[in-house]
C-alpha cells in the first residue's frame, strides 16, 4: 500500500519524501479537524455528568 503510493509519486527520492510528508500532515489535519471530533462523542471516555439516560 505505502510502497504503491511511493512508486506512484513523481520526482526523485527527495521530492517523493517531501510529498509524503505533506500527505501525512494532511491526513493528520483531517483526523484532528473532522474525524476525531466526530468519533469522540461516540466513545465512552468523556461523559462527566450524572443523568437519567
Amino acid at each position: 500500500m505505502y510502497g504503491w503510493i511511493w512508486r506512484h509519486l513523481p520526482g526523485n527520492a527527495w521530492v517523493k519524501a517531501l510529498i509524503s510528508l505533506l500527505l501525512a500532515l494532511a491526513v493528520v489535519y483531517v483526523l484532528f479537524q473532522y474525524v476525531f471530533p466526530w468519533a469522540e462523542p461516540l466513545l465512552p471516555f468523556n461523559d462527566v455528568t450524572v443523568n437519567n439516560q
Partner: protein
Amino acid sequence: MGVTTDQDEQTEVPGSDSPSMPRRRGRGRIATAVSVFGELLITAGLVLGLFVVYSLWWTNVLADRKADRQGAQVRHHWASATPDSGPGALDTGDGIGFLHVPAMGNGDVLVEKGTSTDVLNDGVAGYYTDPVKATLPMTGKTGNFALAAHRDGHGAKFHNIDKLQMGDPIVFETRDNWYVYKVFAILPQTSKYNVDVLTSVPKQAGVRKRGHYITLTTCTPVFTSEYRYIVWGELVRVDKVDSKRTPPKELT
C-alpha cells in the same frame, strides 16, 4: 515486491514457467494481501495513537484557548458595568462567574449554564439545568449549586478533583461576591445514573436540612467515564468584592 520475485524466478527457469505459474502468482497475491493487511494494522495503530494525543492534549489546547477568551470577556464585562447596574449581575449569556479550587491547582474555571458537551468542551464548568436545576448562589436561595466539568481533555478542569479533601475551600467568584464553600463530603465513586447527588438537599452527603450547598461532579477513574466522582461543599461565608478584587484569604 511480489512482482520482482516472479520475474526473478522466471529468468532462472526460462521456458518452463507455464505449469508453475498459477501457483506462483497465487503466492504473490497472498504475499501482497498480507503486506497490505500489515500496513493497515500499522496505520490503525498510528491512528489510535493520534487519537490519544488528540483527546489528552489537543482538546486541552483548544478548550483552554476558548475558555481564556470567554473568561476575559466576562471579566471585561464586569469591569465595564457600572456599579449601580443592580440585578443585571445575573448575566447567564457568557458565563456567570469563576470557580477557584486551590486544591486542584488550576486557577480560575469559568462557569457557564448547562452541562451539554457543547458547553463543557469549551473548557468550562457547567451548572446543571437537567435533570436537576442547580440553584445559583447569587439568588441567595437555599439549594444546591451543582456543577460538572471534564476530568480529561477539553480543558480537564476537574482533573485533580481527587486532591480535594475534607475542609478544603471551594470559592465561587461572581461580579459582586466571593462565595466561600468548604468541602464536607466526598463520594469517590458512584453510578452515572445517580442523579440524587444533585438534589437541593443532598442526602447522600449526609445532610438533612436545607442549606447553601455546592456539588462538583466529574468522571472517574481518570481517562474513562465508568463512574462519577462527587464532592460536596457548604457555604461558610460570602465576601463582598472590593474595588481591587482582593481575593478571600482562602485563595492567598
